[in-house]
Structures are given as C-alpha cells and as structure tokens.
C-alpha cells in the first residue's frame, strides 16, 4: 500500500454503539466461548436454581398443588415434635462442632507444630473417613455399643441410640474435613513472630494464646462453620443410630419417604437450608479476610524438637488414629464375622448381597457407573466453567453471574437438593422429566451437589497460570480453545485428577442427595447400605460399606499414582538442565 491510497485518519467515530461495532468483528472463537458460558449457565439454572424454586413453591402449596400461603409453615411451627427437631439438630451440631474442632486442632497442631514422628502416616489415617459413607461409623458404633455391643458397658448404662451415638459418629465423619482446614490455618504462620516472642522470653502458654491462636483464628472459624454445616445436614449417621432422637435431616426423610407429605418435606427442607446458608455466608466472609492475612510474605515456621511435647502429641495422635482405624476396623470385622457376636469366625457370607437384596451387587455396579460418569462429565464441565470465569476475555458480566451461581451449591444441603429435584423433575409437564428416575439424574444431581469445591480447586489451579497466555495466543492468531487444550489442560492435570477423584469418591459415598432420586433399577451401593440396615441386615450393610471403602481407596491410590507420574513429567518442565 502506498501512502497516497490511504484515506486520512479522521478520528471520527463510526455510527452505532461500540459494543455493536465490536460484535460485528467478533471471531468464531468468541461465539464458541459465549455459547460455552451460556450453556453451562443454563445448565446450572435448570439443574439448581429452578429445582430450588420448585421447592420454595412446594412449601406454600398443599398436596394437590393449590396455593395455601404460609399454612404449611404454621402447621410446622405448631407441631411440637417437629420444632423439637430444630433444638435437637442445633444441640448436636454445636456440640459436635466444639468436640471436632478441639480434637482436630490438637491433631493439626501435632502435625504442624511439633517434631513427633510418623506425621505422614497420621495424615493418611486421618483421611480414612472420607472413603466411607457416613452410615459406616454409625453401623460400627452399633457393633461396639449397641444392644449386642461388645463394649457397651463403657457407656455406663447410657444408650448409643441417640445423641451420644450421633455425635461420636459425626465426629468420625467430619474429622478429615475439619482437620484439613486446621492444618492449613496452622501451616500459614510467620516464624518471625515466634522468634520475636522467644527473644523476649515469652512463656509458651502466653505464646500460644497471643500468637498461635490469633494467627489461626480465621481457619478455626472456617473449620467450625464447616463442622456445623456438615453435622446439621448429614442424614446417614442419625438415620442409622438416632433411634427416637429426631433431627431435621431425618424429619425430611420421614415426611417425604415415610408419610409422603411433600409439602411438609419442603418446609423442613427450607428450615434446613437456613443454617447451611448462614454458615456459608460466614465462611465466605471469613475466607476473604484470611486471604488478606496470607498475602504478606512470611517466613515459614519450622518446629524445633521438644521431647515431652513431641511425645505427648505422639500419644494423642496415636489415640485419635486408633479411634479412626477402630471404627473402620469394626465395620470390617463385623462384615467378616459369621454371626455377630456369637460366632466371630471368618466368613464371606455377608458379601453375598444378592441373597438379601435382589439389587445387591447390581447397586454396586450402578454406583461405579454413576461415579465414573460423574467424575468424567463433571470434570469437563467444571474445567470449562472455571476456565471461562478465570480466563475468559469478554462477557465480564455473564462470567460474574456464572461464578456466583457456581458458589451456590455449597450452601445447599444434599437432602434439600435431592428433594428440590423431586419437585422439579417429577412433574410430567416438565420436558426435563424424562431423566427422572434414571441414572443421568443421579449424575447431574451429584455433579451439582459437589460443584463448588471442584470449581474452586480448578480456579486455584488456573489462577496460577500466567494470565497473559490468552493475549499471546490472540496475538499469534491461535484460537483460545487450542491454547486451552495444548497448554492449560496439561498444566492443570494434577487439579483435573484431584477433582475427578473428589467427584468419584463423593459419588460413591453420598446418600443424602440421591436418597429421593433412585429407582429400583438405579439403586446405588450407599442406598443399599441404608436399606440393608433398615431391615436389620447389619452385617450385610457393613459389608457393602466396606466394598465402598475399598473402591474409594482404590481410586485414591490411582490418583496418588497418577500424581506421582505427573510430578515426574512436570519436573522435566522445571529442571534447569534439561
């Protein structure tokens, strides 16, 4: 082009709004991104927001679908039995929260602030509960302290069927979750604070209360909130061991499955949503503050050996580890014992599930299929969603809305989500009702149920990737999806594996979200545990729970193996002399 061909630079804006002009220039890749964001957004609305709305609507309708205003709520709050459950739930949740936080804090302190041996072993043992459905600790406790319990004398006449059993079972079940946050809170400290205190000759007790505790306070609050929420929304433990002691979670189940009173179920669901929502908001608030606390560059703390302290924590952690192993071991032992407690000889008869339940083994295969689908479909959607939120170039507002929606599942207890699905998908007029009572609805429900944590894991991984990759890619005229596949996906493989394992294990163990949604053909292993326990086949229930544990454990090992080989490969990207 010669200079004379060129029209003068007028500097005049062409007609139309800038947004419209830019839309005309939009490349195919931008449309692809827009379509992707909209698709996931619509899916989250259809599979979370709308069902929750259906639940809300149900709570103000009678059984025939007529609007009755707040009549259901009035009925609920005048029913002494139901209101009693609120008190029970709060009592259990608060007590469990305190006990679990104290135990987990001490355990985390041992792991991070002492020089006791076997830290890695203790860490691994502490994750045992994640592998099992929450029904398992309750079953084990019945083996130990139930009517025919081996060591029920230790309760001095108290019964395990009730608050005591629920609390012990819950402590087992939530321990790893609480511990994880405590470890993080205690790991992120500044060694210089301790050196300063040392230099001033501060007494250890004072150091603990003026430095250690305040430094970990946000983590502790966060852990307490998680403990509270997990306890108040869990259904497995109180269902198995609660006896006559009613809590909100079991009330929903009784109203819906027992009495077919859907409107009342919806009301209890909304009541259960309140504490969960409340703790979610507290947690969000606290996490924001914690981020600010961590942003300062700190010198990592390395504990110095101290014989009595280290021995004391070794002792404590050993006791705690024995508790965790003991609960798991009891279920295993019970499942292999021929006839508890009279004939404890080894036998596999309780693993012949088909003898007691026609859908016994098939429910396990259903679980495998469901968990695999959840992991694969889930990780694809979650990766794309997180990628759009973190790396998307335009559509700022849309991405913001999407991120907000992605945070919501965390605040919705599984039982409430499952119930909402019933109300939304069972209506024949809803075109989406074709998935009702199928495996896909279980997959969808599970992906949504565990969306937030996976989304955040993926976001964290993506945030660590240079934010200019998209700009470089655009300047080289390579569409974003090619760079995503060639660069982001390989770099994120550890997080991808992590999320897949998380989804798989949770899909194997979850009961609450799917308990309303399965059909005889799509029954899951964890539901079978519940049913077997319900009809008194305790050994078979324990056996099926052990099968679930074994499967989760295998997947975990697979993940660990994968991480090891990924690490080997990634280190090739990092070493100085390739």
């Amino acid at each position, binding site marked *: *082009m010669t*200079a*004379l*061909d*060129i*029209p003068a*630079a*007028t*500097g*005049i*804006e*062409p007609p139309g709004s*800038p947004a419209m*002009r*830019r839309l*005309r*220039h*939009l*490349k195919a*890749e*931008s449309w692809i991104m827009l379509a992707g964001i909209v698709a996931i957004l619509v899916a989250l609305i259809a599979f979370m927001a709308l069902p929750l709305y259906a639940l809300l609507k149900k709570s103000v309708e009678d059984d025939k679908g007529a609007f009755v205003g707040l009549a259901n709520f009035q009925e609920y709050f005048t029913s002494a039995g139901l209101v009693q459950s609120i008190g029970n739930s709060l009592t259990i949740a608060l007590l469990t929260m305190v006990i679990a936080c104290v135990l987990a804090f001490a355990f985390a302190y041992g792991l991070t602030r002492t020089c006791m041996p076997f830290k890695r072993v203790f860490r691994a043992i502490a994750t045992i509960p994640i592998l099992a459905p929450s029904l398992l600790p309750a079953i084990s406790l019945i083996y130990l302290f139930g009517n025919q319990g081996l060591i029920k004398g230790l309760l001095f006449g108290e019964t395990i069927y009730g608050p005591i059993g629920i609390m012990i079972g819950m402590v087992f079940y939530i321990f790893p979750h609480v511990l994880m946050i405590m470890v993080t809170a205690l790991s992120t400290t500044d060694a210089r604070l301790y050196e300063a205190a040392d230099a001033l000759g501060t007494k250890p007790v004072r150091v603990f209360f003026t430095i250690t505790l305040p430094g970990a306070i946000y983590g502790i609050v966060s852990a307490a909130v998680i403990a509270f929420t997990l306890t108040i929304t869990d259904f497995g433990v109180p269902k198995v061991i609660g006896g006559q002691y009613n809590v909100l979670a079991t009330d929903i189940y009784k109203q819906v499955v027992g009495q077919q009173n859907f409107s009342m179920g919806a009301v209890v669901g909304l009541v259960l949503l309140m504490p969960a929502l409340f703790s979610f908001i507290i947690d969000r608030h606290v996490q924001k503050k914690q981020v600010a606390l961590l942003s300062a560059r700190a010198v990592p703390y390395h504990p110095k050996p101290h014989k009595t302290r280290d021995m004391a924590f070794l002792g404590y952690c050993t006791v705690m580890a024995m508790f965790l192993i003991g609960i798991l071991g009891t279920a295993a032992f019970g499942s292999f014992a021929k006839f508890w407690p009279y004939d404890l000889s080894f036998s596999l008869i309780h693993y012949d599930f088909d003898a007691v339940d026609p859908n016994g083994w098939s429910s396990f295969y259903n679980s495998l299929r469901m968990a695999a689908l959840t992991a694969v479909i889930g990780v694809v959607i979650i990766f794309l969603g997180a990628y759009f939120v973190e790396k998307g170039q335009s559509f700022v507002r849309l991405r913001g809305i999407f991120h907000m929606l992605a945070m919501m599942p965390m605040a919705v207890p599984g039982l409430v989500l499952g119930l909402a699905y019933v109300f939304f998908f069972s209506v024949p007029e809803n075109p989406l009702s074709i998935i009702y009572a199928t495996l896909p609805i279980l997959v969808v429900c599970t992906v949504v149920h565990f969306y937030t944590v996976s989304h955040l894991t993926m976001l964290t991984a993506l945030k660590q990737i*240079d934010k*200019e*990759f998209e*700009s*470089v*890619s*655009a*300047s*080289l*005229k*390579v*569409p974003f999806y*090619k760079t995503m596949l*060639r*660069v982001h996906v*390989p*770099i994120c493989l550890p997080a991808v594996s992590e999320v897949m394992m998380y989804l798989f294990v949770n899909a194997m163990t979850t009961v609450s979200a799917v308990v309303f949604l399965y059909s005889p053909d799509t029954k899951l292993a964890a539901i079978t545990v519940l049913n077997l326990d319900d009809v008194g086949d305790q050994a078979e229930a324990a056996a099926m729970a052990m099968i679930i544990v074994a499967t989760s454990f295998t997947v975990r090992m697979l993940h660990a193996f994968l991480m090891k080989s990924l690490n080997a490969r990634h280190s*090739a*990207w*990092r*070493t*100085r*002399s*390739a």
Partner: protein
Amino acid sequence: MARDGNSKSASERAFLEIRDVTKKFGDFTALKDITLDIIDGELICFLGPSGCGKTTLLRAIAGLDFQTSGRIYQNGRDISDVPPADRDFGIVFQSYALFPNLTVAKNIAYGLVNRRMGRKAITERVEELLELVGLQGSGSKYPAALSGGQQQRVALARALATSPGMLLLDEPLSALDAKVREHLRHEMKDLQRRLGITTVMVTHDQEEALSMADRIVVMNHGIIEQVGTPMEIYRNPTSAYVADFIGSMNFLHGRMGTGGRVQVGRLKIALDGAGTEFTKGDDVVVCIRPEDVAVRELEQVRSNKYAMSVREVEFLGSFCRAILDVDGDKNAELIADFSINLMRDFDLKRGAKLKVALPTERLQAFRDDKRGEHI
C-alpha cells in the same frame, strides 16, 4: 524514512495513528485523550512511572482491552473495534508468558502451526529465529531450563515468528538483572534496526528509554507530557515533570523579578530567552542539570556567575557530585557533577570556595505549580 517525528512530509502517513483515545475503568480515567503518531520502522518508548497508563495504551493498540472512546488506525485502516487476532502485531510481556509445557522450539512455532505451513518450513523458520536471537541448539529445552535473558529472547523469537507488522514490548527487560539488562538493550535495539520493524516498548526505566528509543513518549497520569527524541527530551523538557523524570535536575524555586531575572534565595538568575512568558511576581522554577553547572572558562560567561562554597562531596566512581550553596542558604542549593579531573584541578573538597556559572542556554524555567517533582 524520517525518524525524528517533527519533520514528517505531507505525503508520508504514520504507520499507526492514535486519535483521542480515552480509557476508563469505572470512574477512573486511565488514559485521557491520547493522540499520537507512530512512524514506520521506529522504536518508540512509552516512558512513565508505574500506574501512569503505559500498559493500558499498549493493550489498546493491541486490541487486548478496547479503549472507551477514540480511534486507532494502522496503515490507514481503522482497527479501533477489531479484535487482536485480526490485527497485525507480535507481543512480549514482562513475564514472557512462555508455555512451560512446550519446548523452546514449540513455543516459537506456536503461531506458525496455525498457519498451515508445512512441517519442514516450520522447522526451518524456527531454526532461523533461534539463530536470530542467538539460541542455536536450545530448541529442545524447556523454558525453565533457560536463564531469564534466554527466556526473554525466546519470547521475542515467538513474537517475531509470524513476521508481524509491529512489535509490542511491555517492560521486556525489567525482570532481568542489571548486567543482563544492559547487554540485552543493545542486542534488542540492534535486532530491531536490522529487521526495521515498528516497535512500541513500554518501560519505567528512563535509562532504557534513552538508550534504545528513536522517540520517547513521556506519560503521566494518563496523559502524554512530551514526545521527542531522547536528546530533545533530555535537553529541552517542556515541563518540570519531564525535567525531573529524565535524568537529574536542580529545581530552584523563586519569584520573577525585573529584567528577566528570577530571585532564588540570595541568587539572581538571568533567564535570557527562557523567561519571556512570565511576568513580574510569578512563581517560577528554574532548572539546570548538574552536569551543566560550569566552572571552567568563566571569563567567557557574562551573567549568572556566583561565588559558592562546597558543602558536601559525594564520590560516585567516574565523577563526583557536589552540593554547593551560598553562605548556607538552603533556598539556593545547587547540585553539580564534576569530573575527577576538574576536582583535582580546582582542588575541590568540603568547605572549598569556588566560582560557578549557570549558562543561560542551559537553563529552563517553568511556572511553579509545585507538581510532578521528586517522584
């Protein structure tokens, strides 16, 4: 082609024309009515303190973030609303943004693979580029195995691979050690001159800008303070802000008196031509660079000669920096750079008395609005 920007012939159009570009982030205006021509083949530097809007302007040129209003033309084509993929540039970031999981060769070939080039042609082009940036034989390494300077060169090679019409560099050297940085300055400038590629470089390092740029755009809070060659910018800053930002400068605050003289403490400074725009009583700041304070051959200087004493001497290697004053008058303190030679000849040390002159042709005067100094 003309490089000095001031003498553009009528038929010659700028390669890139920026007209009234404004960029807002919410209520905050990051760029305000930026108008600038960038000439074909020149290396132009956006220079200014951190946060003044350099990157924002660069990203608007690239189309990575659209301007709020204003137009941008490349070769006469209005590219204001065109996405980056339809513009014609290569870019290097401060972080280099090399793909860690791809080898050096694959990084460089990244934009080529998408152009339906044959595999052989790509290999050849990559070899050529590796040679161009002096990294022969490193193609199979991963970026992490390279030093910072080498990574920077890979990023440059990747940006140049598709032979773009324009090269954009955002603080390309600031992640490097001082030594490597100095070395790469020359290398990059040399490469740019050989390829004749129009280059926009963002930097907050005035030395870098002075040594590399054909022209410098000094920016401040979203506006352009001055555009010119390094020599123009250094010799004739048009504002106290630019004077202060580039090099060292004495700022003598005073008040305009009669006869074109400014009263600074006990000194009376004649301004000659520089003072015509002021009237008596104006607050004025008189500027002179430390190296322009004259000591030798004072007989040829007619005005602005003062007897001063040396209050402090700082040895800085190849030269000395002296603080001079008149009988301890803090209002008329003067920093002067003297060669070691001169120090010896005049036997200058603390407390010494000497005669200095402030040559009028070296003086600049600005209205004293107490802005922009000592950042």
